[in-house]
């Protein structure tokens, strides 16, 4: 029996701290474990006993890249529990701020974190020497997304302007006009990114995923929709726990989410795109076709194209929302607390972010449960690693390491959210 061990103590260009262990026995890959060793963060426990109004500011702290996802899922859950409906321009502003988060998060991942894998550079700084225009576009897009977050959220990291019922302050039309000009440039920059990433060399690899995403009656999903899959799931978000469960695994401080009936599933851009292709504007669908994407993409490495497509969509959607904007009379609708349970589920850049809160009659949080996208994708990442790594088992360690790191980065994992960076070890016996 021969043993082989490859170890990467910290995988680059993902968020948080984790490790990957690959076990190869007699030239065959027998196990792949994504170990997350970042300490638990206890946000659900912090929330117990706090007032409902504090929730958006507390959950925003879960992530510096996708705070809006946590804020939006939380406020929807609170409003669901208290019987409050937020519509009209307040709803539109929520969609607009979410567009800002998609733009800044996707732009960062596509160019700064993921593209170097395909082009053979150790990082974006080395890549910038030969692909300066793409890096400039990424930085400009990120800035535009951040500008939108700052305008609507008060600041770009951990925004403070979101509240149950709406916002603390809403902008005047004149405040949105300068950002619209930037978004027009961002739209063109995003189209350029789609065309650039579509030229990358992609491994010939597909898996038969069960995609899970929100689906809305007439919108590409951000804040609302039913939970659907490409198999047989079509449920209200309140019924999430009837189909999905979280399990402790010994090698991870983050819980693994699984479909009770079928195991691993996939959330995020590939799932959203596959389940909502018909909800994309015609021009974006045409751009996807030009980039070589069909209506469903099962190659996780091509997720970089889908992310770029979603940046284009987010820019177009943001411009539409701004064009239609009329400042609402009130910055929020009244919320009166009552005892009950509420559910929220929105589309974070990395996939669905599901929240459930139980409230006392005065709005004090009795229990909280938060299921972030990366926790949901962990079993799917491990399944990808087994499938990608198996044919490479006899290859040199560097080859296996590179392809496995790239496989993990296909998911833009936010390990920090799921508990949080990666040590890779290959054990050969």
């Amino acid at each position: 029996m021969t043993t082989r061990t490859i170890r990467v103590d910290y995988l680059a260009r993902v968020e948080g701290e984790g490790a990957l262990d690959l076990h190869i026995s007699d030239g065959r890959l027998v196990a792949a474990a994504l170990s997350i060793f970042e300490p638990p963060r206890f946000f659900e426990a912090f929330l117990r006993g706090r007032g409902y109004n504090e929730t958006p500011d507390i959950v925003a702290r879960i992530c510096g890249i996708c705070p809006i996802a946590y804020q939006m899922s939380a406020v929807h859950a609170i409003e669901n529990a208290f019987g409050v409906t937020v519509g009209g321009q307040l709803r539109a502003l929520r969609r607009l701020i979410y567009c800002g988060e998609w733009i800044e998060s996707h732009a960062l991942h596509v160019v700064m974190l993921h593209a170097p894998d395909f082009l053979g550079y150790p990082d974006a700084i080395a890549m910038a020497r030969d692909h300066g225009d793409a890096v400039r576009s990424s930085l400009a897009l990120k800035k535009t997304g951040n500008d939108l977050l700052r305008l609507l959220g008060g600041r770009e990291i951990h925004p403070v302007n979101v509240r149950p019922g709406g916002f603390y302050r809403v902008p005047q039309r004149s405040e949105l006009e300068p950002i619209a000009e930037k978004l027009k440039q961002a739209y063109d920059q995003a189209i350029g990114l789609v065309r650039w990433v579509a030229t990358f060399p992609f491994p010939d690899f597909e898996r038969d995923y069960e995609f899970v995403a929100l689906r809305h009656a007439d919108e590409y999903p951000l804040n609302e929709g039913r939970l659907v899959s490409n198999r047989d799931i079509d449920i209200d978000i309140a019924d999430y726990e009837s189909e999905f469960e979280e399990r402790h695994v010994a090698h991870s401080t983050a819980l693994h989410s699984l479909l009770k009936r079928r195991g691993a599933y996939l959330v995020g851009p590939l799932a959203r795109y596959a389940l909502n292709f018909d909800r994309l504007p015609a021009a974006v669908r045409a751009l996807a076709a030009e980039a070589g994407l069909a209506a469903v993409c099962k190659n996780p490495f091509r997720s970089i194209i889908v992310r770029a497509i979603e940046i284009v969509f987010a820019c177009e959607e943001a411009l539409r929302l701004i064009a239609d904007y009329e400042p609402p009379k009130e910055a929020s609708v009244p919320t009166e607390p009552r005892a009950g349970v509420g559910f929220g589920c929105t589309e974070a850049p990395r996939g669905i972010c599901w929240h459930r809160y139980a409230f006392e009659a005065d709005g004090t949080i009795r229990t909280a449960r938060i299921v972030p996208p990366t926790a949901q994708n962990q079993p799917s990442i491990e399944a990808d690693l087994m499938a990608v790594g198996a044919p490479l088992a006899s290859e040199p360690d560097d080859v296996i390491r590179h392809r496995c790191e790239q496989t993990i980065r296909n998911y833009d994992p936010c390990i920090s959210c799921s508990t949080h960076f990666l040590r890779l070890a290959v054990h050969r016996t």
Partner: protein
Amino acid sequence: MKQTSPSTVLVVGLGNPDCGDDGVGPLVVRKLTGLLPPDVAVALPGGDVPTLITQWADFDSVICIDAAAFVTTPGRIHRSGGAGSDFARARPATSSHMLGLGDAIELSRMLGQAPRNIIVFAVEGACFAVGAPMAPQVAAAADEVASRVVAEVARLRARSGDSPSA
């Protein structure tokens, strides 16, 4: 044509005010209130260093104040800068959250977007824990750094916008 307008200057305070000695950059920026000419821009980018790259591209000069790892003495001040200075990255970039000042400067230079003059004041800290107080030696160093930034700004503005500084 040779540019003769005064050098445009951006002062940046890096660090988290809630993490002990890491807050020295924002503290220096607070101490500079009312001490800098009105056309000198000030930024507190928080953790969003990538955005800083697009922000400082519009300036001739940038002065950054940041905390540094403890080497010899908490509160010890280091100044780096001038044409051709090497702000070597201490380690490979591991994540977007961890893009450091050295990464940002290197990336800016690679893109041709770096200010002509980049001056960095680094203050050695000892404790960077969340909620920790700032060490008295580090807080005292903030006063000296503020004075040196004022002098540095005056020196940079006295030069024309296209003159690299030492």
